Structures are given as C-alpha cells and as structure tokens.
C-alpha cells in the first residue's frame, strides 16, 4: 500500500428536509506520498465537501477512505480529531489566526492538543523553528493585526506544520492575497513539498496556481473528471 491517501467510491449526500442532495457521487482517487496536487472546480462542484472529507472534518455517506493504510471513513469525532492533530495540516483562505495573540502563540496553539507530552521548552523551540522556516523569525511577537496578509498566511502555514503532518490541505490559500504575495506563498508550498517531502493538496480555481502543480484533479458535479477527457 504505497499510497498516502486513497478514496474508493466516496459518496456524500446531504439531507435537506425531505430532499436528498447528493454532493459527491462516487469519487475515487489516490495521492502518493510527496505529491503536490491541486484540486480545481467551480463553486458547488463538491470540491469543498471533498476537502472536508480528506481533512477528516466530515465523514462520507458511503465509500472507503484509506489514510496511511488505515480505513478511517467511519471514525468517530474523537478519533478524527486525533488524526487532524497528528496527520493533517490545514491552511485556510481567511488565515483563521487568533486575534490579539502573537504569531508564536498562534503557531503553538495546535500543540495544546497533542498527546505525546512535549515539554514547554520543546514546544517553543519547535514553534520558533517553524516560524523561521516560513521566514518570520523577526515577527514572532507580532499580533495578526500588525502583520500583512502574506505574513499572516505564512504564520498560518507555520501553524499547520507544527505537528509535522503528512498531508497539508490548503483551501484557496491565496484567495485573499495579491498576485505577488500569492506567488511567494505558492513558492513556499513548492519548497515545502520539494525539500521536506510534505504531501500538499491545494484547492484553487485559479488556473495560474494550478500550473505550480504536476497534477491537477478537476471536480465537476460531484465527480472527478477523467484527466484529459474534458477541456
């Protein structure tokens, strides 16, 4: 089982009153370790739902989800919380930093829920190292309101890396940034992917962003378009 992520016929149906609304209609895909994949699709195509399932925030109605060789589609909230803490990192479009909290504390936040029993000193060291890696060594005591959009997103990336996840899920990470900053952030993703071998799944609807990736998954109407079959 060489794949890091494998989805087999994943379906997700929302029940809105008496109407069943199928959003994912049988998605199967694999992502190998060290890949940089972009997911593209129009709004309402189901890509957000797919990301939620990949990120263990939600469970599929049916189908199998193999993560690191373990079938986790029916895990309960507690087990999924643990997976999110250990294996998956999130980067959001709107950064989602805690206001009035320094960059360092923001980066440290996920470690409050780790269960390996790291010491205070170790945690701090690791957080500083992560902030160094995203190039913010001189900004560790700044609060989000004192940072630019690009810097805030870099803090968010440092936060997502603090638990040394296997997969980094980035949901439109450059959606709120200007093109020059976007470029920087995307380069950082490429570097993380290239140097550290972190698997990255990047959601976007900017074809320019998708060019950074070797592979692009297109979602349309709850299904994955066969590569080369569409446009």
């Amino acid at each position, binding site marked *: 089982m060489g794949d890091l992520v494998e989805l087999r016929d994943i379906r997700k149906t929302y029940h809105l009153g008496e109407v069943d609304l199928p959003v994912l209609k049988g998605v199967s895909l694999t992502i190998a370790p060290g890949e940089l994949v972009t997911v593209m699709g129009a709004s309402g195509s189901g890509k957000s739902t797919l990301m939620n399932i990949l990120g263990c*925030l939600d469970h599929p109605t049916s189908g199998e989800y193999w993560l690191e060789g373990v079938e986790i589609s029916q895990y309960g*909230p507690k087990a999924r919380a643990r997976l*999110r803490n250990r294996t998956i990192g999130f980067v959001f479009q709107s950064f989602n930093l805690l*206001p009035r909290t320094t960059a360092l*504390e923001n980066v440290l*936040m996920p470690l409050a*829920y780790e269960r390996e029993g790291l010491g205070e000193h170790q945690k701090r060291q690791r957080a500083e190292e992560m902030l160094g890696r995203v190039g913010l060594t001189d900004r560790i005591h700044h609060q989000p309101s004192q940072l630019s959009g690009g810097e805030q997103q870099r803090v968010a990336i440092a*936060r997502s890396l603090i*638990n040394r996840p296997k997969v980094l899920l980035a949901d439109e990470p450059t959606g709120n940034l200007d093109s020059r900053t976007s470029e920087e952030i995307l380069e950082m993703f490429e570097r993380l992917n290239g140097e550290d071998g972190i698997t990255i799944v990047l959601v976007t609807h900017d074809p320019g962003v998708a060019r950074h990736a070797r592979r692009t998954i297109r979602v349309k109407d709850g299904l994955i378009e066969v590569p080369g079959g569409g446009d």
Partner: protein
Amino acid sequence: MNLRGILKTALGALRRNVMRTLLTTLGIVIGVAAVITMMEIGNGATLAIQRTLTSIGANTLVVIPGAQNVGGINYGMGSMTTLTPHDAESIARECPAVANVAPIVRARTQVVYGNRNWVPTYIYGSTPSFLRVRDWTDLDEGESFTEHDVRNASKVCVVGKTIVRELFAGRSPVGKEIRVRNVAFKVVGVLSPKGANLMGLDQDDILLAPWTTIKYRVVATSLSGGNQSVTDTTNATEVNSLSQTYPNLSTSLYPVPSSNELADVPQPIRFANVDQILTNARSAADIPAAIREITEVLRENHHLRPAALSDFTVRDMTEITKAMSSTTELITKLLLYVAMISLVVGGVGIMNIMLVSVTERTREIGLRMAVGAEPNDILRQFLAEAVVLCLLGGLMGILTGRATSILVSRLLKWPTAPSLGAIAAAVAVSASVGVLFGFYPAFKGSRLDPIDALRYE
C-alpha cells in the same frame, strides 16, 4: 491538556478582551461583595442583638442552694444554707468563662421614709458586681455603693424608680435616709428604669445595699434557723407590723423540728451564708462552660465526694437563650438567602456573556477542532474560562466587600464584624457558580460541527 495549559489558555482568552472580562466579572464582584458586606454587617447586627439580649439577662446564671430534707419533709429549693460569700469569690477567681459574680442576700420587709412606707419586691444585699451582672451600671442619679461599703457593712443603698415614686413621690432621694426594719440607710443612687421582667415582676421595685449590711443588720435573726421563711414568721418576736397586719402569715407550714430531730440531722453552720449567687457568662456560647466550671469549683469548696449529689443548682435562662439563638439564626439565614440571590444574578450574567463569547468565537472553536481539539477540550476550555472569571470576580468581590464593610462601620457607625466563613463561602460559591453557569455555553461550544464553525461569519 494539563491543568496549567488549560488555565494558561483561559487566561490568554480572557486577556484578549479585558474590557468584556471586567464587565462580565462585575456581576460576580457585586454579588460576592454584597455577600461579604451583608455577612459582616449581619454579624455586627447579631453581636448588637446579643448585647441587647444580654442586658435582659440572657447570659445570667443563678446558683441557688439545694433543698433541705429533714425527716422526710422537703423544704423546697433554696432552703439549704450552703452558699457562702467565699463561694462567690472562688467562682470569680477560678472560672474563666464567668464574667461577673455577685452574692445575693434577700429580705422582705417594710421600708419607711417620713410618713410613707412600702414593701419592695426586692430587697437585695449584694456587691457592686450585681449591677454589672444585670447590665444595669448606668444610674439615673448618684452612684453605686462600693466594695469598701461591702467590707464595712455601710448603711447605704441604691433604689429603683418604683421606690422613688412610692416613698419620695418622685423627688430625688439621694442623700436622704430611709429605714429598713429600723435600720437607717442612706440613699446614694437611683437606678435607671428597667421595667418588668419576663414574669411581669417590677424590676424597678428594688432596694440594693451591701450584702453585709442586709445580712448582719437587717436579717441577722434569720440565721438562727435552717429555713428563712419559716423562722422569719414563727420567730417574729420583734416589732414587725406585717405579722400583725396579716396574722395568717404566722401559721406554720412545717412542724417545728424537735431538739432530737435537729440533733439527728445537724445543719452545717455557716454564719455568712448567702441566699444565691448571681453570675453571668462571658457570652452565650460560654454558658455551658461556665456552668461546668461553677459546678466544679463549688463541689470542691463544699468537699463533696464524686458520688454525692450537689447541694446547689446552677440555673440558666433557657428561655432567653433560646430566643437569642433563634433570632441570630433567622438573621443569618435571611442574609444568606439575599446573598444567594445576588450570586445567582451574577451567575446568569456570566452565562449570558459566555454564550455570547461562544457565538463570537465560533470560528476559533472551528479552528481549534480542525487542528485536533476534541469536544472535551473545547468544553474544558470554556468551563475553565468561566471558573477563572468567577474566581477573579470572587477575589475582587472579597476586596470590595471588605472595603465596603470597613467604610460602613467607619462612616455609618454600624457595627460590623469580619467573617472568615463568609469569605470562604464566597470563594466556594463563586467557583461553583462558574462551573454551573459556564457549563451550558461550554457544552454548546463543544457540540459545534467543525465545518459549520469554520465557515461561520
């Protein structure tokens, strides 16, 4: 997450919005401050009430001699002559729970001034301590007799308002001489009015003189027999208008013991016996201790073997003590209920703000869940925030409450008494209010769906 981590996170979250934190705790601050201020003012009021009740004699203990039983005939309570002034002195010296001791010698006879005469309800021979025991030291006029007068058996007395009315028609008696069984007493003071006692007897109808004077100059004859009342009436040989006015008083209730009988049951002869000893305990709480100490001292003084019955009785004012403790209890309960209400109001305030806080920080909750917080972590975090809020409020409340009660006692001159119990209770209650009212918002936060929470605007 360990306790320190939880507290750190909670404090961090509270620090992020200092103004709101302060406003939220205000409810608890006011609640706890109110509890403490009220408890302290209440304690002060209780003390004041106790002091008032003490003045009607709640702490009074009366030591009376036992009953004499001669040839199967019981002469009733107080018929023995076992108490001595020495007993009174021992009690004063050796019983720490007793505040004041006054020996009492009673008499009942006619008092004459000029062309008026009167038989007071009480003619008491005692020491100046009597007025302290009865909390009666504020005289209307003149002053009390002294220990010196007691030692010298001086012919001085203080009188109550009723006697002033009956013998002096309301004019000042100080410096005048009245005759008690043909002994001339100089009036040195007039007692302040006290009214009737609980049984309806006029307490102002009193003539108070040194016990030595009453004992040796007025009722000296009564020493001859075991029972004052019997011998007083049967052996009334001197000129006593009473026995002639009411001849039936002279009928003997008891057979006069023959010389043989008296020889069979010898009475210990104590030339200086007193009729009773009046004492008061230092406080209502000291009453049982005082009774125990008095009993020990007197049994020792009277050389009673462990198995022997006491030849005296110590009486307390059960009725008044009961009234006092029920009043105190009522006040304490009343204050407690009022305090409870203010704390509940404070707690509801905390719940409101915590609910707002959970809604406002929905995205934060979503984020924390996304990076691996379990529902229980979220629950714990918000609960910790509520408890920290309440404890902070409790702390500030204690300071405010103490300050207020000090201010009240300084400015309004109300009596207050610091209450450690109130402080401990306030801290405990504010922590439990935090848990109680913090739980619902925390629970609500922990049940959020991370996807919805992350998307919440």
